[in-house]
């Protein structure tokens, strides 16, 4: 199973939202990382046929090796999709279970299968104790989990999730992350996020998107490797923090536990600052390294 996106381009007037996006997606989790306005939601809406690209093709290759254009496939492609948009809309006066039954009807599921799967998916997203609660009365996190539940109901082989952990507390984010990880073994899962920690340990590939253009595309460990030796820790007096902030790219600042007048800065720099020592980089460091300063983009090998 493979999803090929070739030179996808989309403009809104003069605004070029996607510029020649190309990627080959097989089973696994793909993270789309990028700041707001980078084209993540546009790409997801194009894949889910909510909007049409100006140019480019999307093709699907099944397990038998047959390749088809997804637009021509039409409903046969949409059958394989599960979509959780950035702002999931639901019917506030529907109960949780009625809503999922409706989704099962829209997916064309058999009644027996639907009953079983609804029960399972509610347990997976920890909504089993509120099946009869109206959606309008759910908390934000519960609604987010319900939106995820409707996306995975029916076992679609391609999941498009736009900010799936938005509004969730840390425990719930781990729950969702683990859940996605579990189901992604035989699915193509594309997650759009700018919460790096959500995908750092589960993504197969990270696609960095800026202003509609792919600026990098590699597994997380490779991306992290690119800034090996460029992340430092620097311990300085509080009074010098402002000056250090002006001179270096500061990605974090923590008060020294032993001396309240000193702070420890986490710095991104091509050369080691005086007094600093290197620390292991994270994917978040790489994200900031790529998106924190426009000039820095040109330095990426």
């Amino acid at each position, binding site marked *: 199973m493979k999803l090929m996106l070739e030179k996808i381009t989309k403009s809104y*007037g003069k605004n070029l939202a996607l510029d020649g996006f190309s990627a080959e997606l097989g089973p696994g989790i793909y993270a789309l990382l990028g700041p707001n306005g980078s084209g993540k939601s546009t790409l997801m809406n194009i894949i889910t046929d*909510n909007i049409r690209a100006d140019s480019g093709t999307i093709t699907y290759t099944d397990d038998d090796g047959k390749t088809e254009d997804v637009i021509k496939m039409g409903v046969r492609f*949409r059958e394989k999709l599960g979509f959780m948009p950035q702002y999931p809309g639901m*019917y506030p006066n529907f109960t949780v279970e009625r809503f999922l039954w409706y*989704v099962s009807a829209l997916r*064309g599921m058999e009644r027996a299968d639907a009953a079983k799967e609804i029960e399972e998916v509610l347990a997976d997203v920890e909504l089993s104790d509120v099946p009869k609660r109206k959606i309008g009365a759910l908390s934000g996190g519960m609604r987010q989990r319900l939106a995820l539940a409707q996306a995975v109901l029916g076992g679609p082989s391609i999941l498009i999730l736009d900010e799936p952990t938005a509004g969730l507390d840390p425990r719930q984010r781990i729950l969702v992350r683990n859940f996605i990880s579990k189901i992604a073994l035989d699915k193509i899962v594309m997650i759009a996020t700018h919460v790096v920690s959500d995908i750092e340990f589960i993504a197969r590939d990270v696609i960095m998107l800026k202003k509609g253009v792919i600026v990098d595309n590699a597994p997380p460990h490779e991306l992290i490797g690119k800034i090996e030796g460029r992340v430092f820790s620097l311990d300085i007096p509080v009074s010098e923090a402002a000056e250090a902030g002006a001179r270096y790219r500061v990605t974090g600042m923590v008060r020294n536990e032993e001396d309240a007048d000193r702070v420890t800065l986490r710095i991104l720099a091509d050369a080691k600052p005086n007094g600093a020592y290197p620390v292991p980089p994270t994917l978040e460091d790489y994200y900031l390294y790529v998106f924190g300063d426009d000039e820095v983009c040109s330095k990426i090998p």
Partner: protein
Amino acid sequence: MRKSSHIWTLLKFEFQKYFTRFNIAMLSALLLLNVTLTAYQYRNMVGEKRRSIEEAKDALIELYKTDREAYDKAYSSHLSEYEKYIDELYYGMSADDPGAMPTFKNKYIDCEGYGDIELFSDVDKIVKAPDTVRGGLISLLRDTASRLRETEGGTYSYRYYANLIERYGPVSEQNFEIGKTSGWNEFFSLKAPALLLAIALVSTLSGTFSWEEKTGFSCTLRTAKNGGAKLAAVKTVFIILTSAAVTVVFTLAPLAVTAMFCGLSSTAQKIQLLNGFSYCQYALTVGQYLLIYIAVRVVFFSATALLSASAAKLFGDEKPAFIALAALTVSGFLIGAIPQSSGLYFLQKFSVTELSGVNILFEKYRGLNIFGYCVDYTAFTITMLFVLFAAFAAGAIFFRPVAPKVYAERASALSHHSQSLLTTEFYKQLISERNIYILLAAIVVKCVVTAVYCSPNTGGAEAQYIKYIGEVSGEVTSEKLRIIDEEGEYINKSLSEYPAAEDDYKNGRITEEEFRRYQNRYNYAVYCRGAFDRLEERKNYLVSMSERYPTVGFIYEAGVEKYLSGPVDIAAVIAVAILGSSVFSCEHKHRFTPTLRIYRRGRRELFFAKLLYVLSLAAGLFAVFSLITAFFIRFYYGVDYLGAHIMSIPRFASTGLDMSIGEYLVLHGAVSFLGHILFFLLAASLSELAQDQIKAIVIIVIIAAVPYYISVSGISGLGLFDYVNMMTPGDIRQGAISYLSCFAAAVVLTVCAYAKWCRERSLRKKK
């Protein structure tokens, strides 16, 4: 920054927020419609003929003012010519061989349909108007004084008469100038489309508070320093200013059209010289009344706009505002239908449709009996308008939206729900979107309106006529004709013998008992005369028809007449507009559309499920409403002549139809059924094309109201897309083109909605 500049800034933002392109376009369209319809009503006021008539009138009026003697001479001369003409006319009509009928020789003006007879009649009315008005007022005062003397002091009646004298005394002493009142009669009697103005205001302003609730921004707003009561007050001021401006524009636009078409006479004339204002209780000039007219309208419609905004704020949705508007319109209709003999007739003074026209407040003095005191109706009503205005304004500022209730759920196993898209669609639309309340309200309104409309005429003459028909009901036979003739002879004899019998009794030639017999017969004849004349007319009609349609018969067709002449089914129109506009817009409102379109059955199957829902609901609505109408018709009139030939009913005399009444009603019902279906389809399609329920409702109401209004205004040749008339058809033979246009439009829009739902859509551009 000063506080006043904060308020001004907030106010400016309110104007920017709500004067969107759609709202500006909609207001412009409604204003244009307002002007066009007004201009159409004056279509006969332009042209050479009209100008000649007005010039002739002006010349004679000027002659009257400057040379009274010459005018009197001209008038006398005209009168004698007119008398001669009448004599010749009478002679010609009564002669065996009439020859050529005489024609009147016009000297002053000779246009088609308007000559000296009409000219002098009109001018005579104008020059005598001051005396006529003063005479009327003095006569009223005299009568009132006489009644006052006979009335016990301290009662309501006494106070009423005393108030009359107090008010009309000074009015009768005014100096009334002679002059035409061109333009003002026409303007103040315009059946101005107040509904258009109300739609404009409710559509633009009802979302002033609720829009921010729906976008979710209101909770953030309330935490801001100026976001609470201050912002609510600014919004209220915005509503008042906008509704005042729109009301003034919508009122002055027809005035400008009137000035163009009819010309406007002096504003210094006394209001009492205008038609319908002869007994106005205030010493006002036309100009002063115009200002009051505009001011009262501003207060009235501002109160309407505030009511709609407050209702929308309370419920977090604009739908209640439209329901409130519909309820007021229906109440106006219901109150207008109350007969004069009813004890509830006084409610007409408070009908919103009458009050929106303002004239009812100034036509004449009216008193209200409040605990035995006579309260001035005009002052009371205007005060109440201000009170309501203030109450709605306060509501707009201080109402808080009703929070949704969260009930503790019982622990229970997972329930199985239906997987039918159609069943879920019914649940979604009627239960989840709360449209069941709209449906129930429409049914209640339908019951009330139908009960009021269908209630029979309970007069004695009608009862006698029903009795007559009952005695001869069925096909025309010689036996029945003989019965009718005998009854006629009896009545005529009773009437003709009575004067002589009365004379005989007075002169003692007959006893009292004998005279009583004559008297009873006479009274019976007088009582039955009207009903018998109707019966005889019906007899003559049926006899003339029976040669071609042998099965025609005597029937009391009031029930069928009521059914076929019924007014617009406003309950159905409003129900369809609201229910239909929700079909697709609810998906966009809840932002579920992008996800819905992913599902295998989320496009075509779901579209057709919604279509089936629309068809089912339209059919159900039609069935229920038809049952309600049938129930009341049967309840009041007992329709048992459906097998009778349609030509038994005189209104069908010229149609040439050859079928039974029942068959015609089936056809009629079929057209009405189709009208319901097509209007519902139209509404549902627009809900997808507009993607917003309020926009869809506004467009639907305009589509429904405009062709209907044009048709009742008498414009011929149009009548396209008249869904309202198709739902409540009159003569179904004459609406074929309209029905076809309705069908075509509904089909085209449904196809467009299908294409839009099932294909791509663009995300809104991010600015």
